[in-house]
């Protein structure tokens, strides 16, 4: 078995240790004997149909985000949407999440268009939302907590029918108002929980791997891993979130 991870704009959108998520996907596949290839796609590169199983994009600084917005809309957006409709999965974080929505409206300057995988939009806010986050989510019918760290000034508002990734228990989430965090559409997951999200949320990592396999190798099961350290880190991160709020 072989999966191909497409890391979108790794040198433009790489703030806050996003690399940890790619490492987690690659290792969790490797430990199960699934071959993994990681392809880095930058400005101008095109997406050939069926070439990638998991798309990943992290966050970036303002200037980089504008460059990426142009490139996404011109060369990759339509292909990514088509791939997701056909069963590819995606994890997009912070700036990447915002660009997978309809648009980002900064405090000053022009609206930055997104590609609209998610029915939602983002407006710049004044105060930065910073801190540990715990959300309650449901992945393929299984309830799970997801824990991470947020650091964003954008407020994201989802359309009425769009499903959030989870309900915010601790932290601000999408906008600090409606208790939603992130968005999930088919196999595409968007979230403000950045950095080392997947290593200590193995349920989310395996959700993405399972979705990706389902498209390419229908009916294929994946082996359980020894996730003792992962769950210890998960539990302690929740404890720490409670203490810092």
């Amino acid at each position, binding site marked *: 078995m072989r999966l191909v991870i497409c890391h979108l704009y790794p*040198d*433009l959108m790489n*703030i*806050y*240790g*996003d*690399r*940890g998520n790619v*490492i*987690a996907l690659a*290792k969790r596949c490797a430990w199960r004997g699934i071959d993994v290839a990681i392809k880095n796609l930058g400005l101008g590169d095109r997406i050939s149909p069926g070439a990638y199983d998991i798309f990943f994009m992290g966050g970036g*600084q*303002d*200037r*980089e985000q504008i*460059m990426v917005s142009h490139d996404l809309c011109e060369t990759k957006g339509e292909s990514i949407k088509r791939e997701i409709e056909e069963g590819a999965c995606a994890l997009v974080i912070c700036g990447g999440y915002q660009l997978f929505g309809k648009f980002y409206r900064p405090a000053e300057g022009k609206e930055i268009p997104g590609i609209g995988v998610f029915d939602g939009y983002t407006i710049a806010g004044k105060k*930065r939302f*910073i*801190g*540990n986050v715990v959300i309650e989510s449901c992945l393929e019918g299984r309830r799970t907590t997801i824990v991470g*760290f947020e*650091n964003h000034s954008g407020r994201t508002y989802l359309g009425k029918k769009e499903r959030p990734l989870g309900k915010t228990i601790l932290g601000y989430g999408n906008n600090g108002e409606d208790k939603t965090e992130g968005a999930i559409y088919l196999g595409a997951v968007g979230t403000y929980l*950045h*950095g*080392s999200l997947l*290593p*200590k949320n193995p349920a989310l990592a395996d959700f993405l791997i399972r979705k990706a396999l389902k498209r390419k190798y229908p009916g294929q099961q994946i082996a359980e891993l020894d996730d003792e*350290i*992962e769950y*210890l*880190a998960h539990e*302690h*991160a929740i404890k*720490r979130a409670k203490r*810092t709020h």
Partner: protein
Amino acid sequence: MKIRTKMWLMGGKIIGSIVRLAGAGGGTTFPGKVVRSLHPRFVPEVLSGLELGCVLVTGTNGKTTTAALVADILKTANIPLVHNRTGANLMSGIASALIKQSLVDLEKYTKLGLFEVDEAVLPEAIDETDPRIVLINNLFRDQLDRYGELDTLAGKMKASVEKLSPESTLILNADDPLVSSIGAHLKCKVIYFGINTDAYSLKGIEHAADSKHCSLCGTRLEYGYHIFGHLGNYRCPKCGAERPDPDVFAESVRLKGFDGSNCSIRTPAGNMELWIPLPGLYNVYNVLGAIAVSLTLGIEPEAIADSIEQFKAAFGRVEKIQIDGRKLVMILAKNPAGFNEVIRALSNIEGGLNIIFALNDNIADGRDVSWIWDVDFENLKGKISRVICSGIRAWDMALRIKYADTEAPFLWIEPHVGRAMERLIESVEKDGTVYVVPTYTAMLDARRILSKKGYVSPYWEE
């Protein structure tokens, strides 16, 4: 000094003694906080009488070490100074240093103010101290939850150094593209320093690299060689922006593990063959910065070289401690770039390593621990005998080590850093060495425990 300011200086000293008597910690920044809130012009008025003015040292990595190097050089040259030695690098820390170290007739006994300042505080510090020299060493991703984005930070720094007068000097690291871009089109003098050898150049850019794009046009920079992180010999293929030729530079560097390095240094005032008693290339930058500051203040190269060769690191940066016949080496690592340098030095040591990585997430460490995923622990593959992950976020650290596939035969988790040290020391043979790599507050914890047992002095200064 105005009478009113003198009275605040006395008042601050009294507050400081009360705080210390009450046993409320060292009271390092509290007196300064109180005095500044009641007398906002306190710092500028105290400093206005200094014969040689002020020097500000900033940058993500190495500001404490660089300022300590300059302080040593100035002391050897008999220039009396005030210096915020304890790493209290916000304005309240500067005010507190003034209160603690100065007599009421400050200008009679003190000639110069030397202040290490936090990157985000530089604009305020420039306004209040009217410095004659500002040194910016580097800008790395560090505690982004506090600073926001690097570009924004550099923009604010640029706006603040535009206010420096033509008599002032700005000293910049030529090898850091974001820092060197601050030097364009200024009224003040600008001096650059850098490392001109590719002897230790990295093959690819490390994952911690932050500023890989031209700060003028956003194009990806091309590198002739990398020193570490985003530091190196760079050029923008589109607009032609490139590394400025440094005025003070290391022509050759020979690293000697955790002991130090031998360097040939070129300066406009003459050359130096120098033994630097501090490890790693990052300390070569600290020394180059300190040399540039000292030369600007008119100190002779021979005197500078003598002081540097005698230098002892500020505590905890690298500290070697004897415990029951074993050697404990403690090396502070507070962000990806610094951590990668520590890993580079560790990976050059022969024999299986015994290491504690202690990760805290207090405010002074940065609340967000995801930065450890930008550290290249993968480079320790096959080099570790035993590793203990410790600190408040011991489990996150353990995950990072697990996913780095280091093949360490023993991976333990012990959040209490004291117990972690005990366990590791017991498990190594006599004459063995254990390495402790803590973040900032984990280092303070480790040191407090070691000083209770009498292994190290509890004090910051010697």
